[in-house]
C-alpha cells in the first residue's frame, strides 16, 4: 500500500516535471499569439490615424508613420458633427442603461421577495421575452415608434429597448443568494419593502448591480441596428452610426481620417473597460456558468 503510493507519487513528479514545462511554454506562446492577433489590427488603426493620405496610399506600405501627422483628428472631427454624436451617444447610453437598471432592480426584487398569485406566469412571460430578439421586431416597432411621432427622438431610440429580461434574472439570482437573516432582521425591525430594497438589498447586491449596469452600458453604447433605423437626420445619429456614414461618405478615399474617427469611439470604451474589466469579465463568466 505504502509502496504503491510511493510509486505513483514519484511517477506524478516525473511526468509533472516535463510535460507542464512544455505545456507552460505553449501557454506563453498562446498568449503571445493572442496579443499579436488582437493587437495588430488595433495597431494598424492607430498607425493609420497618424499617417498622411499620401503615405497611406504609397507602396510599399509603411508600418510606422514616416511623417507622423495629427491632422487626421481635427479633420475627422470636422468631417461630421462629432460633438453631437458624442452627446447623442451619452444621452441614449445613459438613459437606456438607467432605465434597464431601475426596471431590473424593481422586477428582480418583486420576483425574489414578494408573493403574488400568478408569479409563475409572470416568470414565464419574462423568460419568453428572452426568446424574442430585438432584430425580429424591427418592422412592427418602427411602425409603432413612427405612429407615436418618435422618429429622430431620444425616446424613440431608448424606450423600445428599455425593458430587460436577462438583467432581471441576473439580479434575481443575486438577490436570492443574499443572507436571508439580514433581510429578515430588517423586516422584524419594521422596515417596509421599499426600505429593505433601498437600504438592505441594493447595497448588499452592489457588485451584481454594477456588473449588470456595465453590460447594459456597453450594449447601448455599441447598439447599431435600432438607432440606424429610427434616426434619419445627421444630428440625431449616435457614434457607431456616425462612423458608418463617415466611411460611406468618405468612400475609400481617406482612411487616415476614418481611422481617427474610429478611435474617437474605441478609446473611451477601452479606457472604461480596462478600469472595470474584472466586473465585466467575471460577471459574464458567472452568469454563464451558474446558468
Amino acid at each position, binding site marked *: 500500500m505504502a509502496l504503491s503510493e510511493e510509486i505513483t507519487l514519484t511517477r506524478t513528479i516525473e511526468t509533472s516535471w516535463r510535460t507542464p514545462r512544455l505545456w507552460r511554454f505553449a501557454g506563453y*506562446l498562446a498568449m503571445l499569439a493572442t496579443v499579436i492577433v488582437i493587437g495588430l*489590427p488595433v495597431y494598424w488603426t492607430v498607425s493609420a490615424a497618424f499617417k498622411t493620405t499620401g503615405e497611406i496610399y504609397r507602396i510599399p506600405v509603411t508600418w510606422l508613420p514616416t511623417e507622423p501627422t495629427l491632422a487626421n483628428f481635427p479633420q475627422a472631427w470636422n468631417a461630421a458633427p462629432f460633438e453631437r454624436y458624442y452627446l447623442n451617444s451619452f444621452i441614449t447610453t445613459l438613459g437606456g442603461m438607467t432605465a434597464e437598471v431601475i426596471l431590473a432592480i424593481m422586477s428582480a426584487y418583486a420576483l425574489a421577495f414578494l408573493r403574488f398569485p400568478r408569479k409563475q406566469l409572470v416568470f414565464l412571460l419574462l423568460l419568453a*421575452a428572452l426568446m424574442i430578439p430585438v432584430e*425580429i421586431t424591427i418592422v412592427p416597432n418602427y411602425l409603432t415608434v413612427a405612429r407615436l411621432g418618435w422618429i429622430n427622438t431620444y425616446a424613440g431610440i431608448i424606450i423600445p429597448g428599455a425593458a430587460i429580461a436577462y438583467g432581471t434574472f441576473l439580479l434575481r439570482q443575486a438577490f436570492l443568494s443574499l443572507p436571508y437573516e439580514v433581510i429578515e432582521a430588517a423586516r422584524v425591525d419594521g422596515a417596509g419593502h421599499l426600505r429593505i430594497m433601498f437600504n438592505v438589498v441594493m447595497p448588499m447586491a452592489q457588485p451584481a448591480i454594477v456588473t449588470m449596469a456595465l453590460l447594459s452600458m456597453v450594449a447601448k453604447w*455599441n447598439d*447599431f441596428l435600432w438607432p440606424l433605423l429610427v434616426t434619419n437626420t445627421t444630428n440625431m445619429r449616435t457614434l457607431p452610426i456616425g462612423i458608418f456614414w463617415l466611411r460611406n461618405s468618405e468612400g475609400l478615399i481617406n482612411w487616415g481620417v476614418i481611422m481617427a474617427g474610429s478611435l474617437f*469611439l474605441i478609446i473611451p470604451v477601452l479606457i472604461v473597460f480596462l478600469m472595470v474589466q474584472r466586473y465585466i*469579465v467575471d460577471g459574464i463568466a458567472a452568469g*454563464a*456558468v451558474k446558468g
Partner: protein
Amino acid sequence: MRERREWLLFALLIGPNLFLFGVFTYWPLLYNFYLSFVSWNFLRPRKRFVWFENYVDVFSQAQFWTIVWNTVIFALFSVGLTLLIGLALALLLNQPLRYRNGARAVLFSPVIMSGAVVAVVWSYIFDPRYGLIDQLLGLIGLNSPNWLGDPAWAMPAVIMVYVWKNLGYAVVIYLAGLQGIPRELYDAARVDGAGPWDRFWHVTLPGLSPVAFFLSVTSILATFQAFDIIKVLTNGGPVIATTTLIFHLYDLGFVSYNAGEAGVIAIVLFAIMLILTIIQLRYLEQRVAYS
C-alpha cells in the same frame, strides 16, 4: 389585507417592465404574424390580406434558399471556429502563467467594441492593395484576394471578423468552466494512473461539456442576430453573397418596404430560434434530472 398590499406592490414593481415588453416585444411578434399574411408596401396606406401568398413567394425564390444557406454557413463556421480556437486557448491559458489576466483582458477587449466600428476598421485591413492582410500575405509572397469584392471571399472575410470579435467571450466562458471542474477529479484520475491525455479525455472534456453546450447554442443564436458587421463590411454583398436571414429581413423591411415578406422572414427566424432554445432547455432539464 397585508397580502393584498404585497400583491399590489408586486404588480407596481414588475408592471413597467412587463408593459414595455408587451408593447415592444410580444405585440411585434404577433403583429409580424399578421403582417406575414398581408401584402403591404409600408410607405403606402393600402394593405391587402393575401393568406399564404407571401410565404409561397418567399419560399419559391431561389434567392431565399441561398440566403438560408449563407446563414447556415455563417453560423457553423463562426461558431465552430470560435469554439475550437477558444477551447485550445482556454486550455493553454488555464495554468498559473504570468500576465494571464492581462491576456484575458486583451482577448476580451474586441467583445466590448462596437461591431460597426470593428467592421469599419477591418474594411481598411481587407483593402487588397493597401491593407494589413495584403502586407502580411506579401511577407510570404502571396497576393491578397479582393476580400470584400469577390463573392467567393466575402463570406470568409465576414466570418474572420466575427470570430476575431467574439473569440474572447468563448475563452472567458471556457475558463470559468475549467475552474469549475473539481480538483479532486484530477487527483483521483492521477491516482488511477491516468496520463495527461487520459485526464483530458475523461475529466476535462466531460467536465466542460455543459459549458460547451451552453456556448454553442448561445453563439448560434447570436449569429442569427449578427447585423452590424455584415451591414458595414459588405452590405450583404457582393450581390447576396453575405446576406443572411436577419440582413434579408432588414433589406425587405427597410430597403424594399415590403412589410409582408419581412414578416415571413421574422416568423421563420423566430421559429428557428425558438427550436434552438427549446433544445437548450430540454438539455438543461435532463442535466438537472441526472445530477
